[in-house]
């Protein structure tokens, strides 16, 4: 109960950031870069074990953008020139130019590499079909729906292969779902294609967005667990779940990933206690709000540590509390 987990991405250490820039300029080769990505992955696995995270991630040290990474490995995509995201920030938005295929497994080798380093379960981490579609241009499929369903097939193959390799948890992130509530049904249908028949525990992470309109459909997302940002809006999202018997497990963000400030342990404990008034203890997985890749490595470690410590304290309270009750009843 109150198991802890990391959401997905973890910050890349300075030496890896430097190496990635050098690789882009052709100053180091793919093999040299790979060695450093492996080193960073090893360090993050070890760090998460030391912190006592129950279900860990490989930290995505070898990925850049969560959509671009899959578009580069799937067939049917072409990379674009720069598009502005905001301010002075630009990115390359993938273009679907042909039938989307998955010529070979994308993440499975990395998952095996990470899992071989630890006895704790490592989550398989995928980007969901709706998000890949929404964050790409589409020149090939006649509609957004057709593109999404085709991508779902490629992601399904990847999820299958992760399960075959032994992944007990498969997370399929859909951060774009909350931005177009009118397409929630499409996102649900596509995610269903990915998770159908999987025996592994399935999860999805959704960013905050337009919660009032997507909230009522959340329970229909075909996964076992939904991971949401609670901390960055002062836990107000709990109001939505109050009085509902939410049928799924909930990934509960108790620390904000967008802020440099490290929450106090007491704050995270208070967040968790608040959540326990709405969810059952065995329903809750404790984690940061979102992936931590935008924080410094030190901030990320501190935020993860707060999650683990808060979960421990509250877990103890619950165990003591319930044994007391038993005593009362027996007495």
């Amino acid at each position, binding site marked *: 109960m109150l198991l802890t987990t990391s959401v997905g991405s973890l910050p890349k250490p300075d030496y890896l950031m430097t190496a990635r820039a050098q690789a882009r300029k052709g100053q180091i080769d793919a093999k040299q870069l790979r060695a450093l990505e492996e080193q960073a992955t090893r360090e993050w696995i070890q760090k998460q074990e030391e912190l006592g995270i129950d279900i860990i991630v490989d930290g995505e040290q070898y990925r850049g953008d969560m959509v671009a990474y899959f578009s580069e490995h799937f067939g049917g995509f072409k990379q*674009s*020139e*720069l598009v*502005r*995201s*905001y301010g002075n920030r630009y990115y*390359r938005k993938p273009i679907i130019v042909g039938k989307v295929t998955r010529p070979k497994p994308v993440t499975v080798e990395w998952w095996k590499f990470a899992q071989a380093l630890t006895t704790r379960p490592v989550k398989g981490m995928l980007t969901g079909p709706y998000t890949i579609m929404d964050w790409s*241009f589409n*020149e090939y499929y006649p509609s957004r729906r057709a593109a999404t369903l085709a991508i779902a097939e490629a992601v399904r193959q990847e999820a299958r292969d992760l399960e075959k390799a032994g992944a007990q948890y498969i997370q399929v992130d859909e951060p774009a779902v909350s*931005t177009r509530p009118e397409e929630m049904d499409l996102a649900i249908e596509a995610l269903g294609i990915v998770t159908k028949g999987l025996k592994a525990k399935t999860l999805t992470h959704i960013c905050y967005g337009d919660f009032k309109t997507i909230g009522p459909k959340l329970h229909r997302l075909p996964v076992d667990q939904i991971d949401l940002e609670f901390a960055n809006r002062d836990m107000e999202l709990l109001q939505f779940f109050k009085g509902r018997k939410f049928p799924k497990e909930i990934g509960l963000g108790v620390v904000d990933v967008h802020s440099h400030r490290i929450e106090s342990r007491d704050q995270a404990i208070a967040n968790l206690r608040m959540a326990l008034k709405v969810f059952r203890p065995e329903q809750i997985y404790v984690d940061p709000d979102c992936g931590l890749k935008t924080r410094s490595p030190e901030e990320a470690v501190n935020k993860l540590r707060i999650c683990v410590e808060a979960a421990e304290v509250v877990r103890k309270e619950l165990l003591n509390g319930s044994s007391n009750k038993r005593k009362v009843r027996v007495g």
Partner: protein
Amino acid sequence: MISTTVGSYPKVAERAYSTKLIGAISRWQRKELNDAQLEEAFRDVTRAVIREQEDAGVDLLTDGQIRWEDLVTPIAKRLDGFEINGLTRWFNNNTYYRRPVLTGAPRFRGPILAADYRFAQSCAKRPVKAVLPGPYTFAVVSEDKHFKQLRPFVLAMAEILNQEAAALVAAGAPVVQFDEPAIGFGLPGRQAGKTDIKLAVAALNIATQGLSATTAVYTYFGALNGALAPLMKANVDVLGIDLVSEPKTLAALKQTKITKALAVGCLDARNTKLETVKELHAVFKAVSKLVPADRLTVNPNCGLEFLPHPQALAKVKRLAEAVRTFNG
């Protein structure tokens, strides 16, 4: 029938006018470039995007909004009463704007874009239009800690934008366009169809008051549903409609008494797929049954900055080509 672009244009072009603006802005932020040096970088790109539009054969140009962070920041940061806050999603696009926060009475301090406008027109052989955010959209995408209700905020913005528009007309702008995506889309992050169209039209009437230039309102990103008829009564010469985001608007137009010149968004400026001349001609034909050709402008459905440069340029060329062959 003439062609125009809507507003923004890619600020960087790896295989045309370069990506040097990215470095120039970062160096300026680190104080390694002074204001004049940054201005020179902006001017170089502005010249290039004006030339591209002219070479393609576009009739009515924009300056590409090369200096603009987004539709509202360039204005908000030069008015009294506003602070600029964190990033917020720009309607249903995967791009972000900085949300203006109104903390005191909004006030116009003096012309904001007139000098930029004069520069753009000085490098163009064809007319350049001036583009402003519309008062309704401006208020809706901002956070209001001052009025705490939409109506006085929208009307105050209308007065301010009217002063800015007058300055642009005085600088020589033959056309002033107000962008009102919130009319069609509804409020960002909420369901469409919640537009207070009466208020939006009242604000437009104030914003366009006394302007001795052609005035236009561009709605994009959404459906116009009940907004078409009230917009036909607004004090504005040209109504811009987005037939790409909502093709059903064409049917609605057929049911509406059209009393304005129309600017029809018929190329998708949010997807790279290039329309064929044949597809464009079909749209031109449909709308020219509703309005005489001399009251028709055609354009991409919104600003071109959502596209990478090669595809944006291809769309501009295709648009001009389709107009040329249609006009015969």
